[in-house]
């Protein structure tokens, strides 16, 4: 008999996202769940580094990608992640699909489920579209790969993974997000994820490109998890651990929200001079694609502090982790 091991009822530590079937945003993710995804993604990175980049975990699973908005890196990243786990990945583009004939999103969704898809990865120009689909699916899971200006949870997860690899725990770390917050689903999901991980978020950028709910609640616990707004980028950068520049969505700047790109560049471009105010080890991040010389100087984008390429690699690992977590696992056997 050993006395050290107390007999207790089964209480296994959390290792799965179950019973979660969808990943829509990070606002309902606990810190534990985010840690599970990041830990799993670390193991997945090892698969990426192999000569033979394939494991059999998702053999016989069908993943559909439905991208109704242009994308290269996210769609390819999901496709690569699925294939490395041995799932069958089928890509559906907006043009050339029945969406062009006017088929409703509801009917498309139900049709794909009827084909016994296990998971649909969706990008949609309308905020909330993945939620609508998830509500009408009884078996198939949904991953939100970007909906309008609302959310992009896997991008935020890969950003968290990249930060954690370099900084260790994110508790109390200062993360500056600068640029066009108004149109950025990446930034919104990141604010939720960073808040869950205990990081301090400061946002900066032109007031016209900061969402009202954010600028109104600056310096207080607000709907976006208590991010602080500092319009002066120089002040915002003080002692930062991470500086994340967002893409200036020039295709969406026709509404007169900026006096000129030149003025934006002068006041909010992340430059080497401004990085001097951040911590010496601070990371430079960007969700891509980068407008070099607008939101981020070319020398920084390709400099030693930049982890932009690592973000892309981690993106594949994060998507492998999410696919694995959603498509494996069963009921706990009552033993």
């Amino acid at each position, binding site marked *: *008999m*050993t006395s*050290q*091991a*107390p*007999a*207790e009822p*089964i*209480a*296994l*530590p959390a*290792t*799965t996202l*179950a019973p979660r079937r969808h990943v829509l945003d990070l606002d309902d993710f606990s810190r534990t769940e985010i840690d*599970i995804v990041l*830990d*799993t993604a*670390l*193991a*997945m990175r*090892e*698969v990426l580094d*192999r000569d*033979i980049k*394939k*494991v*059999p*975990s998702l053999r016989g699973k069908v993943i559909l990608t439905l991208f109704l908005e242009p994308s290269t890196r996210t769609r390819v990243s999901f496709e690569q992640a699925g294939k490395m*786990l041995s799932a069958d990945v089928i890509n559906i583009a907006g043009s050339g699909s029945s969406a062009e004939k006017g088929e409703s999103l509801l009917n498309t969704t139900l049709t794909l489920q009827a084909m016994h898809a296990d998971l649909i990865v969706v990008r949609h120009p309308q905020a909330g579209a993945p939620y609508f689909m998830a509500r009408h699916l009884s078996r198939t899971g949904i991953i939100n790969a970007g909906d309008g200006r609302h959310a992009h949870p896997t991008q935020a997860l890969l950003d968290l993974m990249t930060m954690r690899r370099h900084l260790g725990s994110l508790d109390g770390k200062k993360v500056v997000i600068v640029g066009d917050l108004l149109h950025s689903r990446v930034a919104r999901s990141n604010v939720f994820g960073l808040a869950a991980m205990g990081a301090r978020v400061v946002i900066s950028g032109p007031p016209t490109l900061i969402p009202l709910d954010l600028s109104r609640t600056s310096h207080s616990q607000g709907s976006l998890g208590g991010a602080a707004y500092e319009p002066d980028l120089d002040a915002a950068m003080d002692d930062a651990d991470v500086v994340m520049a967002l893409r200036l969505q020039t295709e969406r700047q026709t509404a007169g929200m900026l006096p000129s790109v030149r003025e934006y560049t002068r006041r909010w471009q992340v430059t080497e001079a401004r990085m001097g105010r951040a911590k010496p080890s601070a990371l430079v991040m960007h969700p891509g694609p980068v407008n070099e010389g607008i939101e981020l100087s070319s020398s920084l984008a390709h400099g030693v502090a930049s982890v932009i390429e690592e973000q892309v690699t981690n993106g594949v690992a994060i998507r492998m982790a999410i696919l*694995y977590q959603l*498509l*494996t*696992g*069963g*009921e*706990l*056997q009552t*033993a």
Partner: protein
Amino acid sequence: MADEREILSADDIRQALVRMAHEIVERNQGAHALMLVGLQRRGVPLAHRVADAIADFEQVEVPVGALDINLYRDDLTSRPQPLVRPTTLPAGLDGTRVVLVDDVLFTGRSIRAAMDALMDHGRPDSIQLAALIDRGHRELPVRADYVGKNVPTSLDEIVEVRLIEVDGYDGVDLVPRAVRSVKP
């Protein structure tokens, strides 16, 4: 419930591992080209202990790796999956004699998965298996080359291996399934 009983004490574990280390070196006529690969999670510290024992009496550092088999399981959709842990192999596998090290040999399915996982990393000259406990009930044609202790068990029992590196103390107990305690 009262039916918990000790199978191996800390001392027994140490002696069993030293004996297995001697057997491994004897069977392979030295430690040349050997690699010890522990199965996550408790196989990994066991592999390190066997390597330490070999270093003691043979003055050879045998490389040690860690293998996670979760991505190769055959029951991925029929039970909650454990956390996938990193696989790290110290060198290429081609031309090595790999000894897989696990804490408990039971159905043999983990070992099947481990061999598949290993083959994705290279082509070892041979694969052998060392298990601290062989509890029987095989479901696949798998056997261990080196066994710490053979333990007859019923399917209503669980073999709980505790190791200092993971659990803070050493010991192996046979526990009725209903009172299984928390095992990370």
